[in-house]
């Protein structure tokens, strides 16, 4: 699976597009330092944190995309920062667990 696939997946909307990347795993967490220390590179990071700091974490931890769950708010400055730094953001109304399962199934990880 690559990040391009999100555009075709039901329940997911690409909010900030970017260069295609492989999605190798799924990681769910909302505490930023927890995600920073533990999210694997190339993971789809499912979270409700839509602020500029979450974008910084995604960029530096080198995750494949932020998957903003439960229709959580995406701050405007976060959207701008993500576009600048090439961080892909995908939105969904699903909670993190269901979003993670959907991505993992699509990616053949389950």
């Amino acid at each position, binding site marked *: 699976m690559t990040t391009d696939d999100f555009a075709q997946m039901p329940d997911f909307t690409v909010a900030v597009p970017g260069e295609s990347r492989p999605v190798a795993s799924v990681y769910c967490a909302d505490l930023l330092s927890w995600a920073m*220390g533990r999210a694997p590179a190339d993971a789809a990071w499912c979270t409700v944190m839509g602020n500029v700091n979450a974008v910084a974490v995604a960029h*530096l*931890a080198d995750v494949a995309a932020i998957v903003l769950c439960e229709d959580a708010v995406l701050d405007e400055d976060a959207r701008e920062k993500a576009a600048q730094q090439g961080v892909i953001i995908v939105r969904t109304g699903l909670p993190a667990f269901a979003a993670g399962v959907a991505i993992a199934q699509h990616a053949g990880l389950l």
Partner: protein
Amino acid sequence: MPNIHMHYVVPGDDFTRAGEASADLKARLKKLGMPSDAVRKVAIALYEGEINLAIHAGGGEIEVQVFPDKVEMTLTDTGPGIPDIDLAMRAGWSTAPDEVRSLGFGAGMGLPNMKNYADDFEIESEVGVGTRVFMRVNVA
């Protein structure tokens, strides 16, 4: 790869700008062709340090030396200092205020993450004087 020196000033209490030094360093190291796993370790360790400077110390300074086989980072501040370093190093221990926690920080993982991602980690602190952290990440 040439030896490169960089200096960053981290403002205090500005969480929208925290991460700029780490992002800049990451971009430079990638441009230099450093392996991505080493770049990732540097970026994570330095970002946690930047956040600590912004949250706890009222800002500070970062010196970075890039060598062909390692990256050395020294973070210094003149903040309140850490009374009990062993406690501060414990995963889950946090003194971050509520406003910072509401941004998603304050998990008590900053210093442990820095230690985990650095190949060498040293911290010294004096209450009322400030804190100095040294980190080295080896480039495989």
